[in-house]
């Protein structure tokens, strides 16, 4: 099974990267750009066919390693 995890900064947390990207896009002449936020996407293959137990596993990975829930949110998509 394939899993895609998005790790993004919580909404109140400053995102200097996103801010810089927004400025750079404006400087390049793109207009009407609102908030820009940058996060991580992690694609992984796991040897598991059952969606429920896959989700439990990936959830544990997020909690333990992939995200720091102090400042980040994560969400999980499974692609069997």
């Amino acid at each position, binding site marked *: 099974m394939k899993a895609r995890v998005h790790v993004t900064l919580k909404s109140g947390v400053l995102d200097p990267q996103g801010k*810089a990207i927004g400025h750079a896009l404006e400087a390049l002449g793109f207009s009407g750009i609102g908030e820009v936020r940058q996060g991580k996407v992690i694609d992984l293959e796991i040897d598991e066919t059952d969606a429920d137990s896959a989700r439990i596993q990936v959830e544990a990975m997020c909690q333990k390693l992939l995200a720091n829930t102090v400042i980040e949110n994560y969400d999980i998509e499974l692609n069997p």
Partner: protein
Amino acid sequence: MKTAVVVFPGSNCDRDVKVALEQSAGPGVQMVWHKETSLPDGLDLIVLPGGFSYGDYLRSGAVAAHSPIMREVKARAEAGTAVLGICNGFQILTEAGLLPGIMLRNRDLRFLCKDVCLKVETSQSLFTARYESGETIRVPIAHHDGAYFVDEEGRRSLEDNSQIAFRYCDEQGHVTPESNPNGSISNIAGVFNESKTVLGMMPHPERLSDVALGGTDGRGLFDSLVETLS
């Protein structure tokens, strides 16, 4: 030799390289702010210094490559003016398309600051005339994204046109996997453009150009430029 150092927001080796340049060439190096849209007339050399332009957010050098001044830098480079990019300057040159390839995160993922040995691949350039081909020099690196990457075809064409300026090597001058600090393809530490008028390199020659700092191997590069461009 008439030289300009471009200062981007977040450049932090601009003064260091100015000091090293002036040590070799005498005073008069001009600092040019990135928001300028033109460069001084009659420049012999343009330097893009090290640092973290725009915080190196998104990709190292990516945002700086689009600053107003870069249009002018490109035009001058195309007209044959010598351009030197050190560290972040090298990253900017690749992002701007003035040099082939791109820098990826270091193999071990960590920022790495230490002296390394470089093999000077050729003394046949504006930048390396004062070195011997094959000479080993000691110069520091300090980067997080320094793993040079280019596809196989690109690598071959760099080799075929002798566009590789420096490779990481051991103290004896052997280019080995162990002496590759960051996972660069073929231990590449610096490359030229096809006409060898543009050089990008990850190591910092300006940091070992003064006996008080523990070495002067980097000075040869600035002395070469003075010799070839004056």
